[in-house]
């Protein structure tokens, strides 16, 4: 049965609806209050975090760390409870915590405004005006929280499966209707969805353990989980934590392997089929080596079917899925990997051998699935977009890949480059060499002229000529300074590229 997420606003009837639903269905009930209480026990000052996020949204390092830990505790609480049985969760945007888990039913509750106002007036003993102001402020704060913590707008209807408007339907009837809807096959758990939830649980547990252990609490770590493998990256300046990480997270149930990668930054590589023997792998690996970056693989197929992760019989049509390598294959079934799955694994293993692995996962469906599978707290320096939409004709493939690249760049806020462009940038072609030589020649000419003809130049800049023609100095400065900076900058960049010190 699904995990039912009821998303609502305080005093808006959402909590009562969630409790009623849990009672009718015989499900467990968990609320945001429980998560907050557990977070506080784990040393996460949620109140302080809320104020910081809502009033001062610029995320500082410490706040970003606290936010990640809070989200890990929330994910862990939900997954743990859901693993024990069926669950109704009431909160703000809990459904964003389980991307890739398809057996979730996301319900938004629109409160009945009159009743809500009365409720606030009675329970908080406020006058009408103050109660209205209170509701307005708290709604704005919660919207801001969802925006800054989850990166989505709370009022976006695309984030929900159903919207219950309590202005038009009673709580009782809404609960009855939702009970029926929860039985629909669309929300039934699939092996792939269960697997995705296990991965989320493993990832959140690792994050919590690393946060609570004093040896790793202060480190900037990113944690990803796929197929029981934990991939943890740490900053070069915190290389001391590497040896401690396996001790801290090694005993988490379900963890089969731990991979620690030292990375100053991260590169996201989105492609439909990966191949460690391809030229593109060498190029991405080369840029990662130069930058000291970890490469995260994201196998993406827009079709939502076979190509990336192989056959996935359990996927419900119309609902995209995230899965780890063998999506849909249960543990007790012998592994049958498709060719694309095998090459995906081989690529990941090749990255591990190179010491550049940032983990990997595959995702099928609409392009928003890319965003939901990417950890928003990871600052990517580059997104490499490889071959996508392979089933489309060449022209459509190019256009769609270009549009997707622009869309990714807009949402992830990192430079996006295609694999072919990356190759061109890495190679030192004769045309580039010619360009650099030409730039160098122009720069040299400017320096020779300026330094061999210092007298006339200084005359223009501040001598007699300047007195009679004051416009000449700004003109000379406006032409020479940017020209030299741009051309010499190009030459310096090329030199660094040649000695592989970008």
């Amino acid at each position, binding site marked *: 049965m699904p995990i039912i997420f009821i998303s609502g606003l305080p005093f808006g009837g959402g909590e009562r609806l969630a409790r009623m639903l849990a009672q009718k269905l015989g499900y467990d009930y968990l609320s945001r209050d429980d998560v907050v209480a557990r977070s506080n026990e784990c040393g996460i000052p949620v109140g302080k975090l809320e104020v910081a996020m809502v009033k*001062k949204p610029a995320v500082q390092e410490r706040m970003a760390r606290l936010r990640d830990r809070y989200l890990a505790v929330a994910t862990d609480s939900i997954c743990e409870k859901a693993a024990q049985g069926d669950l109704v969760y009431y909160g703000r945007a809990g459904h964003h915590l389980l991307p890739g888990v398809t057996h979730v039913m996301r319900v938004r509750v629109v409160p009945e405004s009159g009743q809500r106002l009365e409720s606030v007036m009675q329970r908080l003993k406020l006058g009408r005006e103050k109660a209205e102001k209170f509701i307005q402020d708290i709604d704005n704060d919660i919207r801001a929280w969802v925006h800054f913590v989850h990166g989505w707008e709370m009022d976006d209807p695309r984030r929900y499966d159903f919207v219950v408007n309590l202005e038009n339907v009673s709580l009782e009837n809404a609960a009855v209707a939702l009970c029926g809807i929860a039985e629909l096959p669309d929300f039934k758990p699939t092996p792939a969805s269960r697997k995705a939830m296990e991965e989320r649980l493993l990832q959140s547990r690792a994050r919590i353990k690393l946060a609570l252990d004093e040896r790793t609490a202060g480190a900037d770590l990113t944690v990803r989980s796929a197929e029981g493998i934990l991939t943890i990256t740490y900053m070069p300046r915190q290389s001391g934590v590497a040896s401690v990480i396996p001790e801290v997270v090694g005993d988490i149930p379900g963890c*089969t392997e731990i991979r620690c990668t030292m990375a100053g930054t991260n590169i996201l590589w989105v492609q439909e089929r990966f191949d460690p023997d391809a030229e593109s792998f060498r190029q991405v690996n080369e840029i990662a080596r130069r930058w000291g970056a970890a490469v995260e693989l994201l196998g993406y197929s827009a079709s939502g079917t076979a190509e990336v992760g192989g056959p996935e019989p359990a996927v419900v049509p119309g609902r995209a899925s995230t899965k780890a390598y063998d999506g849909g294959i249960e543990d007790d079934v012998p592994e049958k990997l498709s060719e694309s799955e095998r090459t995906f694994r081989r690529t990941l293993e090749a990255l591990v051998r190179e010491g550049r692995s940032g983990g990997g996962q595959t995702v099928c469906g609409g392009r928003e699935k890319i965003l939901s599978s990417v950890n928003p707290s990871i600052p990517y320096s580059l997104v490499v977009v490889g071959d996508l939409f392979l089933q489309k004709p060449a022209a459509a493939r190019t256009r769609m890949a270009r549009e997707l690249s622009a869309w990714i760049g807009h949402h992830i806020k990192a430079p996006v480059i295609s694999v072919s462009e990356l190759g061109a940038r890495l190679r030192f072609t004769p045309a580039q060499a010619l360009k650099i030589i030409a730039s160098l020649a122009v720069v040299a000419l400017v320096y020779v002229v300026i330094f061999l003809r210092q007298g006339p*130049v200084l005359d223009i800049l501040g001598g007699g000529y300047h007195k009679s023609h004051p416009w000449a100095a700004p003109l000379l400065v406006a032409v020479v300074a*940017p020209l030299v900076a741009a051309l010499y900058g190009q030459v310096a960049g090329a030199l660094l590229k040649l000695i592989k010190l970008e």
Partner: protein
Amino acid sequence: MHVLFGDVFMQLTVSKALLVILLGFIGGILSGFIGSGGAFFMTPGMMNLGVSGVVAVGSNITHKFGKALVGSKKHSQMGNVDKKLAIFLLATALVGIRLAVLINSMLFEGGTGHGAGKSAGADLYISAIFIGVLFFVGLHMLRDAVRKGAEGEGPSRRITEYLGRLNLKPVIRFPVSDVELSLWVLLPVGLATGYLAGTIGVGGFIGVPAMIYVFGIPTAVATGTELYLAVYMGAFGALNYAWEGFVDLRLTLLLFLGSLIGVHVGAYGVKVVSERLIRLTTGLIIILCVFSRGVAVPVYLRELKWIHYNPAWDKLFNGSSTVLLFAAGISGALAILYNVIKAHAERRKIHTTLLVSRPGSET
């Protein structure tokens, strides 16, 4: 001091040219390391080499303009530039720059004319602003570096909160930074940034902290936006100083030679040095630069005839100031280079030894 063209430009010898390139290189390293323009080192460095203060500022702001032009493109690609915010700040920053150029030019032109060094008034004024502003900035950085628990805590947000509570209308929304700001907060910050950029070439030392502490925007966006702003402020300042006849293009070109290489080394250093060490190194270098400038001040006071001592001592003051400045810059640059080389060597070792561990088995 050997000068050309009406006491404005100095005679450039090979050794001085090499020292200017070195200034550019060290300034570039510090600039890449700190994320500022490096003017706090290059401007007084040029003054120590005999360049008058106003020409040092004019030449450096021209250099900054060119460098920002290259750097802001990268920040723009990373989504770190809030162009709307930059436009609002620029409106008053340009006024601040014009004001600074006028004051500097007036002080330069208004040299005593009775035997005193013509640029002494402007030099003293520039030095005083430099010492006042950078002493405060340096101390603040050192305090942050030594404060217990400062690592990763991020800057204080008290000012942002206070100003937010005042709710001064009109309030403008900036989607990239994701903040709402009062116009009455934006305008003075722009003015102060422009004024300092125009006076001593270190607008970023006011602009970036103001964006972080007063506006409450993310550090990366503050740095990116400041760099974007620096293109226009630098261009406007460079053209203004050039119009007044105070840009020595030779110095600008020599600075480019060193700084455009050094900035990459410094930027690499940021990746491998801890945040606390960055603040500590930067704070110490800034404070030493301030002391170095302070040592040179008696020379300007004597030239203005405000104090009297044997002019032969000028050499001692100037020499000590230069030695102190270069010692600070070189030791700072060496410390950064040492860390870069050490980290590079370590990374080469670690590169192939990725830790792969299976719970319950040997790693």
